[in-house]
């Protein structure tokens, strides 16, 4: 009797775990609206039918002589991971958030002794490109929309 009970329990454990793990992994796509999450995911990265038009949100530093220079992900998002800079700029396109982000980045620059005298102003903007064409030589943006600009504190 004990042997049967042990075997039954073992069977429940083996197949309970063996079925619940893959079912849990499949659960994000079994919903009416698939939901990406962690650690259960739909693995949606780069799966969309994307066109050639690419909108890039970035912050540029303006030097005293008026030149525009690229900053770094660490200055923009406070972390060297570029994807966080992508998310940070994408989430800050409203006028209030845009200005707040601009000022935050300006404060980071002002706190950096190597950079604080380099830039006088920052520009938060969205540039529109034909992305594949960019790598074939068409490096100028098709359109530019400025969200906000802010001075670098002295």
């Amino acid at each position, binding site marked *: 009797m004990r042997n049967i009970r042990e*075997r039954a329990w*073992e*069977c429940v454990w*083996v197949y309970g*775990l*063996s079925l619940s*793990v*893959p079912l849990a*992994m*499949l659960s*994000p*796509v079994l919903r009416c609206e*698939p939901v*990406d*999450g*962690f*650690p*259960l*995911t*739909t*693995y*949606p*990265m*780069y*799966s*969309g*039918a*994307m*066109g*050639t038009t*690419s909108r*890039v949100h*970035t912050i540029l530093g303006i030097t005293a002589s008026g030149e525009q220079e*690229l*900053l*770094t*992900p660490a*200055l*923009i998002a*406070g*972390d060297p*991971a*570029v*994807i*966080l*800079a*992508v*998310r*940070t*700029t994408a*989430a800050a396109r409203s006028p209030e958030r845009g200005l707040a982000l601009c000022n*935050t980045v300006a404060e980071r620059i002002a706190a950096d002794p190597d950079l604080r005298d380099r830039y006088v102003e920052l520009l938060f903007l969205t*540039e529109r*490109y034909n*992305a*594949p064409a*960019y*790598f*074939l030589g068409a490096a100028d943006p098709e359109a530019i929309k400025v969200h906000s600009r802010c001075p670098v504190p002295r």
Partner: protein
Amino acid sequence: MRAGEKSPQNALGDLGALSPLRSVDAWWRAPAPARRLAWVRVAVGLYTTLLLFGHVPALLRRSGFDPSRFAPVGLLTPLGAPPDPLALILITAFTLLGGLAFTLGWRYRHSAPLYAFTLLALTSYLNSWGHLSHALNLAVIQVLVLSLVPAADALSLDRRAGRTREGKGARYGWPLRLLMLTVVVSYSLAGIAKLSNGGWAWAKGDAIRNNVAHDALRKLRLGASISPFTAPILRQPWIFSLFAAGTLAVELGAAIAMRPGKLRRAWILGAWAMHLGILATMGISFWYPLTGVAFASFVPMERLFDRFLPKAWRR
């Protein structure tokens, strides 16, 4: 399977009318050596512990982020605000020690589930700042599975201390198959996402070319660098048809890896080559498959590594 060991007694052995189920049961619970599962534990434990160690600076930097950026996922979903920095440091230190205990197989029945839980909490925290990284999911799921199965019956401090012993091979076969299944489900989901979001047109290559170009462009315009191969490859559009077809073949064909033999080896090689291609074209490193650890459950690791271990350590 050890010499002289028979196939496991079928869990459904008394149900003669259910012979297809008995066949499935016999396949799923086919015996495997305890050391094979133990090697997977060592590989996954070492990988995740080193990965976590490498992520300590990123974890600490996040504690200085503006709390309004906190968008909790996973285990942290119920939280309304980021955890206290001191709590984060303590959990990180505890998880690193847990990773060591997991890898060495010390007090495994208790330390492994604790490690899996805290690893899930920390990786949830890493992903709770507006971006979901898909490089950690499979590793975390495999740690969760390993923490619930007898993966420290060999090659462990528990075994050396006599706290555990090797059982019959049937105890170790199904966890390995379950780990393989997690890999298969992960890749299949990625393939399904491409078909449901991009349709079969995704296979033509235009979508992936545009995605690669967009990803590289935004990196450049945010002041980051890109792979030295990205620009030259983007100037050869025909390559992306091959990439797309190969990616879909690997992802949608992942189920063939459940069957041992040449097709499994070919699939593992194909999946590894796909990640190498992603690294070359996009500079995105999926280290779990690139190091081979993601595929450890498919490989008879004990045959590969036992020869390098002194006999006294093969326990």
